Each structure stands twice: as structure tokens, then as C-alpha cells.
């Protein structure tokens, strides 16, 4: 057992999968430059020395190399493609949405696309084009699986499960949760480390996780917001409000069993999302819960409907925090 950050756990997970299966390869920008960064957040550091032929460093061409990854996948390779910032996924959208997600169905099951795609998300002082939470643009695409780990254990387990799955899986990682060190450390980073076992393990791609139990209200969140929701729950406990926190983890498909069990138990749900309130993943969760449990009290805490601002006070206002979560809980309880 060792304590690891998300970046370290992902790195180990990728190395182990590449050792386990020679079909696995990594493709992305700046991932395999000797003396380089190991990708923008150090996850692939050292990979090139271990697997020189299977760490493919690309030109700045997201549409092209994501398409190349899809093509390799339909021939039986198992690529892990990544973008440096989730915002760049838009460049690759046609290959992800029109090809990766659809090739199996429109071929009548002839093709499968065992492709893993990784993308860092979240606002971190870099301005609106390096800051978006991108999950919502892909959870709505039939044919894609979407996961978002909030801690190192889940990150490693989901990564391994994704590599072993025969379908296109998108893994959204939060920049403030990587735990990158030294020159790549992020101001405002949150501790997402976990104890990582020595043995091989996976985490199922379609399950949410209850990370704190309680009977008065359910907080539903993922990535950084799962941590803030947990902090809010600790704070609420001081006022004798017992909040249950569910880490959604699998954004598509949603684990309705776990979400519903909690919603039934507490009767009140606050969905917390970093990103504009309109049209988010939270909208889908709210609608789905409401259909299945008419009369359920639901509130959403999310960012305003604006591009991500730069100035620290504005960015701080953009990003939901524990205080805003506890406020929403109190307002819901007051009804």
C-alpha cells in the first residue's frame, strides 16, 4: 500500500496496462519528449523511456491524432489519447462524436473502438479557453462512456477499466486534483491522494460511490465538487444536518440505482457542478431524478452562465465552493 496523487496513480496505471497488453499505446502532444514534461500535468512522465515505440508524440493536431487513435482502435490497437487541456477536445469533436461514438452502431456491430481519451478540466487561472468543464459536451453522445475520478484510487481503477473496455471511454481529470509537484504544482490544488494497493484492481465504469452517509439531504457531485461537497457535509454536521455525499464518478451511463437510493432515503437533493448551470450534466441528473421520483426536492449549485473569467476574485465567484453548497442545502431545508 502506498499513498499516491492522481497523477502518480494514473502514471502507474498506464504503465501497468502497457506492460500487461502490448496493444496499448499512448498518443498525445508533449507526452514523449525526452527531458520533457510528461504531458501538461506530468502524468506521462518517464513513459517514453519505458515504452519508446508506444509513446507517440504528435504535432499540434488534435483532430488528426484523435482520428488516428480511432483508426488504430478499429484495427485492434488500444490507444490512450489525451489533450493537454479539455477545451481542445472541441478540435477533435468530429472524430470523437461522428466516428468513435458511431462506428460500431452504423457498421451494424462490425467494428469496435477500444479507445481511451483523457482530458484535464477545471478553472485554474488560465482564462476561458483553458478552463472549461467539458463533461457535458460528451455525456450527451450515445456510444461514448464518460467517467470522472475524484481521487487517486478511482483514477487508477477507472483508467485500467477503461483500457480493458472495448468501447470509447472519456476520462475527465481535474487540474486541481492531480497533485502534481514542483514546477507543475497548481495553486489552489486540493488533496485527492489515496492509499493505492499493490495488487491489480479496477473500478467499474458505470457506478457512482457514496463517499459520506447521511439522512437529511443528498449532495450529488463529481471531480473537485465532490471534495467541496464533502467539506460542506462536514460543516453542515456541526449544525446537526446529516448530508450524504454521492460521487457520481460515472457520468455516462449514470448510476441511477445509487443516485435514486440516496434520493429516496433523504428526499432532498442538491446537485453541485463546476460549469454553467444551463445544459450541464446536473440538468440531466435533475430531470432523471424528477421523472423517477416525482415530488423530490431538487436544487442545483453551479457556475453562472458565463465564460470562465480570469481575475482571481471573478474566478472564485465562478467556481462553486463549500459555502455556496451549504447555503443551498439550508435553503432547500427551509422549504
Amino acid at each position, binding site marked *: 500500500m502506498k499513498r499516491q496523487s492522481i497523477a502518480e496513480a494514473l502514471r502507474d496505471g498506464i504503465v501497468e496496462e502497457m506492460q500487461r497488453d502490448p496493444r496499448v*499505446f499512448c498518443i498525445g502532444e508533449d507526452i514523449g519528449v525526452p527531458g520533457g514534461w510528461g504531458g501538461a500535468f506530468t502524468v506521462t512522465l518517464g513513459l517514453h523511456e519505458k515504452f519508446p*515505440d*508506444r509513446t*507517440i508524440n*504528435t*504535432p499540434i*493536431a488534435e*483532430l*488528426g*491524432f*484523435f*482520428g*488516428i*487513435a*480511432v*483508426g*488504430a*482502435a*478499429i*484495427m*485492434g*490497437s488500444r490507444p490512450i489519447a489525451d489533450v493537454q487541456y479539455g477545451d481542445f477536445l472541441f478540435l477533435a469533436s*468530429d*472524430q470523437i462524436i*461522428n*466516428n468513435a461514438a458511431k*462506428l*460500431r*452502431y*452504423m*457498421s*451494424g*456491430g*462490425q*467494428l*469496435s473502438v*477500444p479507445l481511451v481519451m483523457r482530458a484535464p478540466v477545471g478553472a485554474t487561472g488560465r482564462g476561458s479557453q483553458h478552463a472549461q468543464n467539458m463533461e457535458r459536451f460528451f455525456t450527451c453522445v*450515445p*456510444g461514448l*462512456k464518460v467517467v470522472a475520478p475524484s481521487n487517486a484510487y478511482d483514477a487508477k481503477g477507472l483508467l485500467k477499466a477503461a483500457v*480493458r*473496455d*472495448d*468501447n470509447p471511454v472519456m476520462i475527465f481529470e481535474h487540474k486541481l486534483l492531480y497533485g502534481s509537484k514542483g514546477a507543475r504544482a497548481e495553486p489552489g490544488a486540493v488533496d485527492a491522494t489515496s492509499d493505492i494497493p499493490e495488487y491489480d484492481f*479496477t473500478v467499474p465504469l458505470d457506478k457512482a460511490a457514496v463517499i459520506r452517509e447521511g439522512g437529511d439531504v443528498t449532495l450529488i457531485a463529481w471531480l473537485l465538487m465532490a471534495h467541496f461537497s464533502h467539506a460542506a457535509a462536514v460543516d453542515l454536521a456541526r449544525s446537526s444536518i446529516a448530508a450524504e455525499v454521492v460521487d457520481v464518478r460515472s457520468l455516462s451511463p449514470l448510476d441511477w440505482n445509487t443516485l435514486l437510493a440516496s434520493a429516496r432515503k433523504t428526499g432532498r437533493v442538491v446537485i453541485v457542478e463546476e460549469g454553467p448551470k444551463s445544459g450541464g450534466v446536473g440538468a440531466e441528473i435533475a430531470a432523471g431524478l424528477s421523472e423517477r421520483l416525482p415530488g423530490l426536492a431538487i436544487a442545483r449549485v453551479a457556475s453562472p452562465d458565463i465564460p470562465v473569467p480570469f481575475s482571481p476574485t471573478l474566478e472564485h465567484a465562478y467556481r462553486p465552493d463549500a459555502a455556496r453548497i451549504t447555503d443551498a442545502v439550508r435553503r432547500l431545508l427551509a422549504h
Partner: protein
Amino acid sequence: MSKDNNPEFLLNLLERMIEIREFEEGVRFLFLEGAMPGTIHQCQGQEATAVGVCSALGKEDYITSTFRGHGHALAKGLSMQEMLDELFGATTGCCKGKGGSMHIGNIDKGMVPGVAIVGGGIPLAAGMALSLKLNKNPGVIACFFGDGAVAEGAFHEAVNMASLWNLPVIFVCENNLYGASTRIDLVMKNTTISERAASYGFGGETVDGNNVLAVHEATKQALTRCRSGQGPYLLELLTYRRVGHSRRDPGHYQPKSERQDWFSRDPINYFASRLIADGLIDAQGVKELKDTVIARFEAAVKQAKRAPMPTLADLETDVFAAKEPA
């Protein structure tokens, strides 16, 4: 005696081209009759490009195609039956009725179901070639696309990486002078497409796409280059489509004089005349070939019209692959 002079081989090339022409014409009339659902993008006039390229490929080679893929499919070895069944939307179609005309393909016969987004199949082909190379597989990918696709960013990014990594892919550009209704000189200043390969550090050439033997020979040479690790090749084939862009397009943007000029260089008439002149077949023999193909087509249509249609039980299958045992 080279394979090129083998009468059986040459007559087979003719039959393959006639098969494409009669299939496409037959499908066109099924649409006019109102018997077929959906839409079609046809390739009459472009038979020599499909047959010339595919006849040079081996069992370990694959092709990618576009929404205009019926000719490629027949040339690569798909049956009229599996294609007609697909066009009618039947479960016995090559894509179980879930793809339709623009996504015809059969991976077991070496054809990826068509990608209908212009340029969308080009990175795919490069990626397939990457996989072959990583596995030290001697196969090559032939990637079909039109002159219109060359303007897409996907073309630029994919050929650059294919060149950079010496991927075994032949980029086959069927230049029929029109991207939908827009003539090529309205979308680029370059006078040829093959010259662009040099700007990415690899080679290309422009070939008469209506001369099936010239296409076949150029493909053979490109295959040799690819298999020896020299990297990709850009094969520009000059050709012309006799029909509109899609079924509702009368093609009025093609000037009459241009049409007549190209029709006088029809790939099937040209090759048949050559074979007749060389004594391999006579006019009656050509007619018999055509009649046999038409009879096969009509029998396949009869069967396709009786083929089973998908039910609601099929609606949500084939979205995801089942979990592979670890």
C-alpha cells in the same frame, strides 16, 4: 509474361467495372421508381478508379471510403446482395440495415464502413496504418476521398502525421473536378492535388483515373513503396462522375461540353474497345457480360425486396461492445 497481359485478369477488370456501372444504374432506377428509402451518392463514370486500385490490393490490405462508396465496395469484393439488402434497410445488409448507403462496408472483406463526413476517414486510414505498422503487419491502407476533402483540416493533419511516421497508407484522391456542386478551381489555386504531397515531405503523382490499367499500375508501385517502409503516397486520379452529387441533384453545374468531353473518355468504353482491338473479346461478348451482370443484379433485387427488416428489438443493439473477459 506480366500479370497485366493475362487475358483472364484483363477481362475480370472489365467485368468488375461493368458490375459497378450496372449496379449503380439499377439502383438509380429503383430510386426513380420510389422503391428505395434514403438517399444515394453514385459513382457512374468513376469505375476505373475503384477497380484499378482494389485489383492491386492483397488480402492483408484494407480500404476506407466515403459516402460515394458503392463502387469501392463492389471492387473490394462486397456482394451485390449484402449491399442491396443494406440499401433497402434489411437486417441481412452488410451493416444490418443500421448504416445505409453512406456507410456501406464489410471489415471482413477489407472495407471499413464508409465515413460520410468529408475528410473524416482520412485520419482513420492513417490510424489503421499506424496499427499495422506497430504490429509489423505488411498490410497497406488505401484511403479513398474526393477533391473536396483536400480542403478539410483533417486531410492536412492526417497526411502530415502519416508522412512524419512513414505510415503505410496510399491516399487515393478521386479528383472528379467537383466538390458537391463547386468546381475545383473555385476552391484552390493549386493546379494539381498530388503536388501538395511534397509540402509534407512525401511523394505523389497524378494519373488518368479513367484508364484502369494505369490506375492499377500506379497502385502496385505505391504498394511496393508503402510495404518497404518508405511512407505514404498521394495518388491523384483524374476522373468524372456522370451523375449528380446525390440522387436529387441534376448536376446542372457541369457544363455540357465538359460532360461530353469526359463521356467520350468513358472508362468502360475505353477499356472494352482496347480489349476488343486486342482480340480478347468481341462486342457480343461485352454485351453478354453486361447481360449477365444485369441478371445477377435483378435477382439480388428480388431477394433484397423479400429480406427481413429490423424490428424494435434491434433498435438499441450494437451501440456498445460487450465487456471482454479480462
